[in-house]
């Protein structure tokens, strides 16, 4: 008998202390510094999907606010065509690589106005500044930031990340299960996390513990979500 599951998941709030740092210690420390003190004034983080960009951006917003600084995670320019620049605060903007013309114009103005507002900038993208297909005056300003590549996690760190992720959902994942998943599944982080989500849901629905046999069954039966592109 299958148990229907409610779509309620414990929220996993991105914070600095639940970021699996891997080889990104320098980037993490610099972003913490920026969130807490606004120094350096601007950082650009780039890395492939699942490298932790969004996590760090959200964590920076939370940390800045906890330190009494106003912080915004901007998605689209506001009705005035600009991103918010909280005075003395922090503006975070992800996916700079795919900004449209209006977004690029808004980011350009943010670069010009941020120093006057004592507002720091944390920008994320999927490519190094030199490869960004953006307006040259925007691209070079991104290149002027302190730039970090977020390096992908190695298997050891991915395992740690999955174990932490499992814990945040109340799952004690066996090391064997994690290493099996890393050997047999698609190894980018979004796919790995999606596999744990599916395992969790199947475990609840079927009243079975989230063990390796269940994971195997799910993978053999193609019940895991399609591979992230």
């Amino acid at each position, binding site marked *: 008998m299958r148990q229907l599951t409610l779509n309620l998941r414990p929220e996993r709030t991105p914070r600095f202390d639940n970021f699996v740092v891997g080889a990104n*210690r*320098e980037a993490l*420390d*610099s972003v*913490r*510094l920026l969130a*807490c*003190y*606004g*120094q*350096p004034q601007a950082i650009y983080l780039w890395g492939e999907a699942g490298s932790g960009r969004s996590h760090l951006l959200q964590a920076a917003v939370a940390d800045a606010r906890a*330190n009494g*600084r106003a912080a915004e995670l901007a998605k689209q320019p506001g009705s005035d065509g600009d991103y918010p620049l909280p*005075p*003395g605060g922090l503006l975070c903007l992800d996916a700079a690589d795919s900004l449209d013309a209006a977004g690029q114009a808004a980011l*350009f*103005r943010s670069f*010009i*106005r941020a*120093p*006057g*507002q*004592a*507002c720091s900038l944390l920008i994320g993208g999927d*490519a*190094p*500044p*030199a*490869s960004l297909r953006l307006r*040259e*005056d925007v691209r*070079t*300003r991104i*290149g*002027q*930031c*302190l*730039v970090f*590549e977020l390096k992908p996690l190695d298997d050891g760190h991915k395992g740690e990340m999955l174990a932490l992720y499992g814990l945040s959902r109340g799952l004690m994942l066996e090391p064997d299960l994690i290493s099996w998943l890393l050997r047999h599944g698609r190894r980018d982080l979004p796919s790995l996390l999606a596999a744990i989500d599916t395992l969790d849901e199947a475990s609840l629905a079927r009243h079975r513990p989230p063990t390796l046999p269940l994971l195997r069954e799910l993978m053999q039966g193609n019940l895991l979500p399609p591979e992230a592109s």
Partner: protein
Amino acid sequence: MSNEFWSTCLSRLEAELPQQQFNTWIRALSASPTADPRSLELLAPNRFVLQWVRERYLRRIEEIGHDHFGEPVQVTLAIGNTPRPAAVKANTAPAMPKPTPGPANAPAAPAIAKGREDSQTQSRASSESSESAAYERTRLNRDFTFDSLVTGRANDLARAAAMQVAQNPGTSYNPLFVYGGVGLGKTHLIHALGNAVWKQNPKAVIRYVHAEDYYADVVRAYQQKSFDQFKRYYRSLDLLLIDDIQFFNNKNRTQEEFFHAFNALTEARKQIVITCDTYPKDVTGLEDRLISRFDWGLTVQIEPPELEMRVAILKKKAEVERILLTDDVAFLIAKNLRSNVRELEGALKKVLAFARFHGRDISLELAKEALRDLLAAHNRQITFELIQKTVSDYYKIKVSDMHSKKRTRAIARPRQVAMFLAKELTPSSLPSIGEAFGGRDHTTVLHACRTIAELRLADQQLNHDLHVLTQTLRS
């Protein structure tokens, strides 16, 4: 332990550490009074600072203690309420409101720390405060001065013109029109001009405004029906510095307002300085009557800095950070990042941050390590094939002519241009460039580069071609 020891520590560390590090980490600490003369308890504002100081500075503080007392001292760290560092105060102070036209809407003076000053001090503070507020209204950046501007062949004419205008605003060249590619120092130059005028005459009414902000002012004036105030304000200036005027394209009302402001200011012999990313006649979407006025004064170009100048820029920037940058490291960065000063600065920041993070001295090895990703990303950008194709298309010759033995001028000159660009825009060796151009000798490449470098000084058309080709290849 006495506060005297902590004061000693502060002055020693201030002398030893870069300003930013000192302000962030050390000034954030305060000494807690303790009874034991052989111990010092330092209070950090949060766990992050505490951990950082423990890992990086604790040993040094203990060493200073040992020097000071001639015996080991115990230094402990704890979290406690401490005053925030001065640099942070500056950053988190209420920021100025968005630029608004008109003295009536001018931002209030920044808050000045109030202590137990006597009335004389208060009056001095008040005068300083009003001067500081007047300076804030100029929107100038104090760090951008002629002294901090590195000069080279790329910008010496522009710099000389700007200095002359600064000495005789309104009478030498009006307007001064500075143009050049992205990130070459146009903004620095006009801020330097503004700061020089301010230094000579702090009563001068100066305003630096980016074209985007001028446009926003026009929109605001329109929405608030305050055009009279807007006009009064911009016409009251002694010096208007307007940056990136290409952003006026197709903004008709903004151009209209600027046209009238321009006329009023020049008639009153008030100085206007304009920057743009291209030559006035090439700006698109600008009214002819405006473009023709840009020709009234002097038009000067800023070109991309050559290698030596890039090295000098890096050393100057490092000096500001109180870091000694050796020639080999400066050359490494300057040789690999050629496009503009901004990315050069980004690379330098990266090296400094890497050295600080790992607690290592800056060396060639460290710089290579710090810039590994960045250099790889840059170097794979522009290839010989791309240069050859772009130049061939531009001069309407065949790509195969880049490799051929033909020596007619119509083919040889573009080929020389392409070799010159290959040397400027890639880190490849001259033999490998020669190889890519039909197996030519490296001396041929050298000859081509020298020829083009000399010709561009006298031949404006060639200079323009190189400018356009460089921009095309980089975009």
